[in-house]
């Protein structure tokens, strides 16, 4: 295909122009995060990495991030474990009611948190579970399990049957086949699933907002939103907090980019 020099140059302009448009808002917040937090700070210079320390301590982002780490650890561990088991059943076994059960799980991928949050709050309040880590985590485990079951079923169905059958002929139990053959073989698919579940949990807003009405149990995005409501002045600290909240997922994205992109594109359910 022959392409003129002019068109090639135009393409580079498009490439750079779009990149600038995407990066500009991100740069705005980065610059704000390093800018002086007050007039007296401005006299000491223009570059203030100390904002991050202030946000971490005074802005309490340290404790918000710790809460987020705890919630993410619970959600990802539980959801991955449960999804491996259910995906294994749906992907490698035949049983009555298989399709009905599977579609029931698929339903969960489409149901928005808005459809379940109202009764969840009032029922969990009756049980005395609001303001606990479980009220924040378990609904998100349920959401992630719906996706994880779908995702792992796809992987298990794609595994070559002869691998499983050879192991079974050698006398391996179905548990052994799962844990010592299929799981190690499925590392790429499992990594993608872990990465997506971590991102969804870390970035989730509505569920932690509603489930901790006293504010004693705040995840990082929630802490950030409330910080913004309280301090209209401290733009620099707010920006520093925003960078801290975004950082874990963005770093992971730079490391495991292919998993993010493939997961979000393949994960779209095609009926």
């Amino acid at each position, binding site marked *: *295909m022959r*392409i003129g020099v002019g*068109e090639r140059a*135009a*393409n580079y302009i*498009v*490439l750079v122009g*779009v*990149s600038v448009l*995407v990066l500009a*808002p*991100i740069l*705005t*917040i980065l610059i*704000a995060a390093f800018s002086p937090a007050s007039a007296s700070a401005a006299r000491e210079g223009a570059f203030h990495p100390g904002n991050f320390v202030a946000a971490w301590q005074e802005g309490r982002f340290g404790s918000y991030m710790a809460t987020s780490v705890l919630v993410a650890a619970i959600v990802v561990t539980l959801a991955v*474990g*449960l999804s491996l*088991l*259910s995906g294994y059943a749906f992907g490698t*076994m*035949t*049983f009555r009611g298989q399709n009905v059960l599977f579609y*029931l*799980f698929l339903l*969960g991928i*489409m*149901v*928005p*948190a*808005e*459809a379940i*949050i*109202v*009764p969840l709050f*009032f*029922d969990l309040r009756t049980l005395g579970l609001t303001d606990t880590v479980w009220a924040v985590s*378990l*609904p998100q485990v349920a*959401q992630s*399990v719906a996706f994880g079951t779908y995702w792992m079923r796809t992987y298990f169905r794609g595994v070559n*049957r002869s691998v499983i059958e050879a192991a079974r002929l050698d006398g391996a*139990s179905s548990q052994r086949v799962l844990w010592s053959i299929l799981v190690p073989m499925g590392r790429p698919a499992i990594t993608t699933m872990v990465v997506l579940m971590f991102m969804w949990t*870390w*970035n989730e*807003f*509505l569920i932690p*907002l*509603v489930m901790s*009405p006293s504010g004693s149990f705040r995840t990082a995005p929630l802490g*950030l*939103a409330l910080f*913004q409501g309280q301090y209209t002045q401290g733009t620099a600290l707010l920006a520093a907090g*925003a960078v801290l909240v*975004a950082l874990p*997922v963005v770093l992971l*994205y730079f490391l495991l*980019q292919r998993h*993010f*992109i493939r997961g979000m594109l393949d994960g779209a359910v*095609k009926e």
Partner: protein
Amino acid sequence: MRRAGPSAGPTPYLLILPAFLVYGAFLLFPLARSVHLSLFDWDGLTLATFVGFDNYIDIATDERLRAAFGHALVLVFFFAILPVCIGLALAAVLTRARVRGLPLFRTIVFLPQVIAMVVVAIAWRQIYAPDGVLNTALRAVGLDALTRAWLGDYTFSLPAVGLIGTWVSTGLVTVLLMAGMARIPAELFESARLDGAGAVREFFSIIVPAVRPEATVALTLTVVASLKTFDLIYVTTGGGPGSSTTVPSYEVYRRAFELGEVGSAAAVGVTLTAVIFALSVVINRRAERGA
């Protein structure tokens, strides 16, 4: 594998059970409870009264709720339709002439997808602020007359919020469509060019039909995302000024947890879910019929 022999260990039902317990208790059951609650008038504290479909009739008649669903459709345009149009053009241009730097470009344009929406909202609040980047830029080029408090303006706040969605979605859509276009065999373009087809005809007769599956996925993902938008509204405008940027998901929160209209909130949530399901089915059916 078909016969679960004696050495099979746990049956498939036992393997599914733990996942199903959590899923059933924290998703299916609350979903059914939402439908049930939506038939009552309840303030969250005292006794509930059964009102039948009144809460649903409200959605059709209450001005604020009707506005909320209308705004959701406007956001669908900004989150889904506009990004698909931009993404198609962008991906086509970049596929036609393979230039260097595409992997880096993909990394950059996909980035907004992984940043927490609260962070995105805060960044854009600073851009739209009265003395923010946008107004500063407008003043610098002498367009002072256009400056305004973008998020506090009755006319401009909704499109301003919508454009944030465009910023978030366009990269995802472009990456998806580029993957689809990479599949088109080069001979197809060459024979079209031998026939004298220009870039425009090439676009409509080769590229658009070829990426139909990817465009369907892109539309489904972005339409669903736009209808679920809550954190963006919560942080940027809180539904205001007045009710000019309120959306169904925000009304669910406001009614249930600020106004004590729990039944109405549940009805809005159930209706929103129905709309999400209906739109996904329509998008995917149309794609199948057209293919």
